[in-house]
Every structure is written in C-alpha cells, then in structure tokens.
C-alpha cells in the first residue's frame, strides 16, 4: 500500500466514513429535489381564460319553460338509455327476451307520459321551434318502441333494426335541444 493509502486509512475512521456517506446522501437528496423543482413537468403556459361569450340572458318565461322541461328530459333520456342498452345486452345474450320486452314496454309508457307532460307546457314564442323539435323526438321514440315491440308478437328480431333509425334521429334531436337548453349537462370527460 502506498504512503498516501496508509494516510487515508488512518484518517478515515468508521465514524467519519458513516458521517460522510450520510452527508453525501443528504446532498444527493437536496440536489435531486432542486433539479425537480427547476425542471419539473413542463406545461404549456395557458393564458388566463379570456372572457367567453355567455348565454344570452333568458327571460322568466324561457327559464321557467326550460326548468319545467328538465325532469321530463331526464325521464326521456333514462328510458331511451335503458331501451338502447337493453337491445345491446339482448344481442350479447346478457338480457333475456322477457326482460327486453319489459324494458321496451316501460319505455313506451314513459315516452307517452313525456309527450303528455310536454304538451301541457306553454313555451314562449322564442322556444316554440325547440318545443316542437323535442315533441317530434318523443314521437319518434314512441314509434321506435312500437316497432321494436312487434318482435314479441311475430318473433322476428328484424323489428329492432327497423326501429333503430327513428330512435337515432330522436336522440340527435334531443341532444341538439339539450345542448341549447342545458349546456352543462355533459361536462368535459
């Protein structure tokens, strides 16, 4: 061993060695933390939100109408979802024919009830066309359900296919009206 090596051995007592290792560790942790703070996940600096155009002010009649439509809309959507998913799960053998029949019958009742409730509302002139569009959608849903239910009379599943375009068109219509009336219904996902 060289003279320098012997000198180092004498100088490097076990206690000093442990102290050195601990100090080095601490320095490493601090350096790592600082580097993370400096180079942390880079993000595109987004400007603060610029003033967004807000919905034009509603008059009391418009607001009252939209509020009255909201629970009806919820019932229509849930019935449509249950009927659509019922058909999908029937096709994948996860729902029995009898269960699908029940769902479609329930949906038909719900659509008829929704039509009655919507007709009882008096839309302001500004919302008359949306009112008519929603009514048209509900009628399409009824026609679609009435067509689908035929499969339980003659045993032909093709009625589901025949019923589909009407429910698709109706769902486009209520999405369009819903987007105008209740823009917060489906937030970013």
């Amino acid at each position, binding site marked *: 061993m060289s003279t320098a090596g012997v000198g180092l051995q004498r100088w490097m007592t076990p206690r000093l060695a442990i102290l050195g290792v601990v100090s080095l560790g601490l320095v490493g942790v601090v350096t790592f933390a600082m580097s993370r703070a400096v180079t942390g*996940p880079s993000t*595109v600096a987004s400007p603060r939100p610029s003033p967004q*155009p807000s919905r034009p002010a509603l008059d009391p009649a418009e607001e009252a109408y939209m509020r009255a439509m909201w629970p009806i809309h919820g019932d229509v959507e849930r019935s449509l979802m249950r009927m659509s998913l019922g058909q999908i*799960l029937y096709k994948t053998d996860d729902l029995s024919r009898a269960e699908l029949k029940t769902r479609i019958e329930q949906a038909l009742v719900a659509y008829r009830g929704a039509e009655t409730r919507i007709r009882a509302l008096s839309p302001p002139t500004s919302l008359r066309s949306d009112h008519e569009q929603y009514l048209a959608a509900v009628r399409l849903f009824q026609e679609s359900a009435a067509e689908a239910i035929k499969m339980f009379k003659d045993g032909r599943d093709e009625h589901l296919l025949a019923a589909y375009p009407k429910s698709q068109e109706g769902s486009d219509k209520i999405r369009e009206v819903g987007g*105008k009336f209740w*823009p917060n*219904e489906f937030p970013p*996902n």
Partner: protein
Amino acid sequence: MIRKLLRVTMIVGLVGVVGGLGGADVLQARQDDKEDRDQENGQGKLPPQTLRSGFESTDQLLRDVERAEKAPLYSAWIVESSRFMFVPFGGFQPDKAGLNTTVNLPVNVGIIEGPDGKITLYDTGWKQLAYIFDWNTSCCWKGIRDQMHAIGLDPDKVTQIVLGHAHWDHAGQLSEFPDAVAYIQKEELKQIDFFLNYPVDFNAGHIRAVNTVDPMTGAQVGPPAQACARTPVCGYPPQTIQEILGKVLHGKAKIVDGRHEITPGLVIHPAFRGHTYGSQLLQVNTARGQLVFGSDTYSSWTGIRDWLVANIQQTDTIQQFLAYEKCYVLTSRLNSFNNCVSAHEPIAYTAAYPLTANWWNIPNGNCSRAAELILAPGKTTHVPASPDRTLCVNLNAPPHTVSP
C-alpha cells in the same frame, strides 16, 4: 442465553394464539375464492378484487410483446378531434391543483395503418357540435373524415374502430364509418346499464345516476361539489349509446370481454376502471416498439411519466396506476413510457412529449392538429414539407345557430 430464547419463543407463541382467537383469517382470501380463481386463471395468480377478464399478468403481457414483435409493423398518427379550453389544471390532475392555472386539453384520436393499407381508429372523437360551439367552451373541432383527407389518409379504408371508452367525446363519430367494425368492452356497457338503475337521489344525493347539475346555472345540485358528481352515467348521452346500438344491430360491433387480439400486432388490453368501468388499451407493433394507446385511462402522458392520476371519472386510482404499469411492461423493450399514447395531454404536439413532436396544423382544420407518431419502413411521411406549427386557437367557432 437459553432462558432468553425460551422467553422469546413463549412471547411469539402467545401472540400467535391471541391472533388466532382474534380471527386473523379475515386477512386471507376465502379458500373457495382462491380455488375459483385458480380454476379460471389456470395459474392461481389472480389477485382478489380484480375482475377476471380485466386481469393480465406481467408474463402474459410480455408474451404479447413477443408475439407482436413477430407481426407486421404499423404506421400511426394522432389527430386532435377538438380541444377543451381553459380547464382548471387541478380539475384534470388533482396533484396540480396548487398551481392554480388552466390548461388546454386536446382530444386525440389514434389512426393506425396496417401493412395492407387498412386503417384502425382508436376512438372517434366528438360529434356534439351544439355542445362545443354554443357557448365557446372549446375550440378547433373538425370532422374526423375531413381531418383524415387533409393529412393524406383515406377514411374509406377504416375497417376497425377500437373504443378506448364510450364517453361522448371519444365515441362521437362512430356513424361516420358505417362499414367499420367497432370493438367495445362488454364491461363498459354492462356498467352503464347497472348504474342507470341507481336511484336518482341515493345516499341523500351524494350519489346520483345522471344530471347532477342545475339545468340553468350549471351549479352542482346537492352535496357533491364536483361536476357531474363523478357519477357513472354522466358521460354517456343517449345519442352516443344509440351509435353503439347501431353498430350492434348492423352486425358491425364486437363486444369483447378482456384481452383480445384483433390481428397480429394489434392487441386490445382491458384497463377496467382505469377511467371508466370498461376502458381498454390498444397495443400496436411499430418500428419504435410497442405503442400503447390509452384513451382517457392515459389522459396525461406526464401523469404516466411522473406516476400521477389524471382525469378521474369512474376511476379506481389503483386501477389507473395498474394500467400505467401495463404500458411500462408492454413498452419495456424499447422507449418505455415514451410510447404511451395519451388522449388529453396538455403538452401534446410539442417536443416536450417526444412521441408527438412531429406535428403540424391540419390544413383547413379549424386549428386542429395532427402528429405523425411513427411510419412503417418504406412508407412516405404525411407531414407537409413546410409544416405550419404556429399554435393556433380558434375561438371564433364556425357559425352555429344559437337560440334563444
């Protein structure tokens, strides 16, 4: 010494007896459960509280890598279907709430071209123009078919669509591809159906099935303070489910249950509860290794890199991390987490997310962007010779009738 040993042995024994009396077996999986899992899995490796069809072991994933590496190489791009503007960072990634800033989130669609020229889409982006433009909450929407034409890809060659999940902003343009076969997890559909049966006001309104906002003000109704209360059905408008139904009725849907190899080099992996109940990933064999498209399970690429949750919807955060881990395993041979493809990464289309660095504004694309991720050998680039890379934000959305 012997006395000391005896004392220790007695103490250990006593602790054991007390533990036994106290019912320590509650920590163990029930024996019949275990046998059940052994039977199902054939290896007894399935952890408890994991859906059988959603579980994949590291060995199974690595076998998929080996198989894929023998398969043809694919080319891949992403296009931005639309862009959420000024989203609070903390709302997207809870760990970033302290930054008190906002981010713009792209909504990316994956385009994967096989050696035969046939195209597989991963997600289909938005359809709901009314939602986008009525109140200018977003920018840059462009129809996916137009986007594909504009970057030199033929939308008529789309033969398959893998839905990472069925939320409206990812499954919105299914009907634009009537001949393409859509792949969706059964778990996704079954869980939407299950939660539709939830009472509207379960648990004093803390949990609701749908429609948890005040219809007029957008304020949260009831006790939960989050948008949509993170309820399980709020991301699925009937319109989107109708589009899936259309695929099913026309024989153009494959409802899968867990892992599924579409073709060699193109493998679906379940990521149940990684974002929604039936989320799924897509592994793609490319010249830069395995790419893993993750939709909203991989909402944030930096989240995968830094091990942070993001975009928590119907997410079990552990399952999201396990889905991150699937990407780490599948990409372990080459490029690691750099090959995880994110749906909403704020720094996408910049060099900071290297996979997306080769980006450009889509010509006449309403400020939407595209990125070429990787080309198969011998393929020609689709990036223009002089790509427009000016960050463009179109707040003057295309005209859309607003009433009232």
